[in-house]
């Protein structure tokens, strides 16, 4: 039976393997390679997406758990061409080095800011996405910058 869910605002359905992790559906069938594979056991966070607004590691999220839900990937983070505050902040703070983990970092950060629009150092440090290049100091600055952008936007 086909699994039906919303993907970046569009209805999608898949009648392949129901136990296929969302990550591999995105990369092999949906043509969305922005979400990356790093470990396959939810240890690194490179595969982070949003499901019904929650940050979720897609490498361990089977398709048959998504019925009726709403999935957002890095490709859908910007709305109508307008970058999300984290994307803008990431550019301003020149965060990426190799860039491979950054989609997952951005999705985790966007989710953090959705829950807590002025995160302190401890909450920022709660992001467990791994970065092999060690961009962590600039990620921290970018999250604080994104919080500023969001709060300026609220005041606008």
């Amino acid at each position, binding site marked *: 039976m086909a699994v039906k869910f919303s993907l970046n605002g569009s209805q999608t359905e898949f009648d392949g393997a129901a136990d296929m992790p969302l990550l591999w559906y995105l990369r*092999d069938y949906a043509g969305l390679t922005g979400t*990356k594979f790093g470990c396959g056991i939810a240890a690194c966070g490179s595969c982070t997406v949003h499901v019904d607004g929650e940050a979720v590691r897609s490498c361990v999220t089977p398709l048959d758990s998504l019925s009726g839900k709403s999935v957002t990937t890095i490709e859908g983070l910007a709305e109508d061409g307008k970058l999300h505050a984290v994307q803008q902040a990431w550019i301003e703070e*020149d965060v990426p080095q190799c860039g491979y983990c950054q989609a997952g970092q951005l999705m985790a950060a966007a989710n953090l800011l959705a829950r807590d629009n002025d995160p302190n150092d401890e909450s920022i440090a709660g992001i467990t996405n*791994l970065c092999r*290049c*060690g961009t962590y100091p600039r990620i921290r600055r970018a999250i604080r910058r994104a919080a500023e952008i969001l709060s300026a936007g609220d005041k606008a």
Partner: protein
Amino acid sequence: MATAWLPEVAATKASSEGSWVRNAMSLFVRVEPDNRVYIGARGPEIGQGVRTSLPMLIAEELDVEWDQVTVEQLPYGIVAADSKPGFVAKYGKQNAGGSTTIPQSWLELRQVGARVRDLFVRAAAQTWDIEASALQTKSGHVVKPDGSTLSYGELAPLAKTLVVAKDPVPLKPNAEFNIIGESIPVADARDIVTGQAQYGIDGVVAGHLVAVIERCPYRDGEVESYDDSGALAVAGVRHVVVLPNPPKDAFSEHLAAGVAVVADDTWSAMQGRKALKVKWHPGSWAADDTDVFRERAHAALKLEGEVARTDGDVSAAHSTAEEIVEAEYFQPFLAHATMEPMNATIDLGENRALLIASLQSPAAASRLISRLTGINPLNIEIQLPRSGGGFGRRGDNDFVAEAVHVAKAIKKPVKVIWSREDDLRNDWYRPSGAHGMSATLSAKNELTSWTHKVAATDRRFRIPYLAGRDPWLTCLDADAFPAGCVPNYLATFTAVPFGLPLGWWRAPLPTFVAFANQGFMDEVAHAAGIDPVEFRLNLLGEARELKYEGHGGPIFDTGRLSTVLQRAASNIRYGRELPKSHGIGIAAHFVFGAYSAHAFEVSVTAGTLNIHRCVCVADVGIPVNRLGLEAQLSGGTIDGISTALNLEVTLKQGKIEQSNFPDYRLLPMAGAPDVEVDIVETEHSPAGAGEMGTPTVAPALTNAIFAATGQRIRRLPIASQLET
């Protein structure tokens, strides 16, 4: 200066010399009528920032504003030539490794920009019927003495018809740089943050299947038997292919015997692999044990070893010494653990091929594909997508060889993807070994001799192209400070056998050596009753050049090392009163032509290391991209902390014990301090920075731990050894 990027191509059947040179402008630079400047980036971008910094070099001499520039990635390129082997590089060297990209490109790519600028000037001169020498350029325009201008975009159609100057043209004096030395953000940042950036693993070839490979866990093992019925029964699985065994006398292609499961998509291939049954014949390295290796390495320090360098008479110094200081250090094997696991997508035709993969050595990949298939390299297209990390791993192309074997067997395009477990267990590991350090002090506490013995794996092990190198390659640095600063000096090496393939791991030699060199220097200073920073500065003495025959030579400047050491001490406010249980440690080292130092302030509570401050100082000569340089130093520092704290690869009964990130614990954000980067600017031609930030981290950390707790750590990784 090398003009290799414009080789003297004699008239060949492929093209006449004139038309090749005329094309030089479009090889790297294209200007559209609206004056938008497209600049080709030739390096493989592995996170070291060359997609931005190399075009900066061209843009500077081209005399355009950076915001006029759009960067485009160039593929790997060769053109037919009469000289052997029948082709030459089209864009110059396209390797990522050894921190060589910036030094090699510094003059070469500035000449590209300058010679293309010269085309625009000559085009304007022709258009205006005026002497070229009367003209200036500014912001992508040629300027006439009366101030009127023509844009490069307007001049491009004419400029393209002119012949690029064969001889070097004058370059800008450093004082006139507008782009070099500035802080330029990553050129394709927007693509990265919107998920559009393409990596090797994202490669698509129409109709490609996906393969995963079940590999033998033992070096030199083989398939004894296998049952593919379960695998073939999984929906989506199309083929099961047994790889040929790799050669037993050389690590020159793929590393392990294996069975590939090929399917319509990645998940099906992975499920198919789970249903595959393989029995392995273990081969001759099935007893490999890293605990035994460590014992053997320390025991081998008692042997005389092969002399790499000897100055004066170290044994005489020992017999007359007031005090002898001795210690043994140990470095474990390391994996590279790039965040993007190995992969390769390959499409093989009768006499053409396409490779899409994250690479560091595309030229070697081209030769490998040609050797395995007989296809002429001129017909092998190799794209250079972004690489999710390199760190030296992707300098070896074993993952390309595997993809070729699978593609040959199934006669279809294929993408081979490695799992994280595959990636940790099939690596070209950083060598491992023991350091035997000894020093003698006179009655006046002067250092009278320094001995550095290494007993470690032989880096050349089964690697034919390294056969002519010294046995101590990447494990012993014969000319490292304090060589040349102490009257009696000895460096020796003894090889200790082990079965693992060995490779290049971020600053291979400096990372391996600095831990022992700078940790022991601290021990000697303490034995002499002299402050460790003062001890180093006294030993370095006045600024002078000493010979250095290793990578980054030919000289080592004691003054430049003193400067970064003093700056690190100053930045961390060395010597101030510290909170109870805090300690500061410092280390400095010469890394591939550049000079780096780290200083840490730490404390240890209940067996956990707390890093209170982290200072990194580097002198790389002229900074090219200031933002990118800071990123490399900061990232390299975090890599150094991550590695020193927790990382090692261990083997029991021939099998690697680590499997995934839970047992190969990369540092998470919570453990990463802010890195205070300070760049010492000098007028020297730039060295590369990709590897600079790592080697001095481990010894600075262990020196700080000693200062804080009195515990001297001489073996990495640190974490499990911290006293509670």
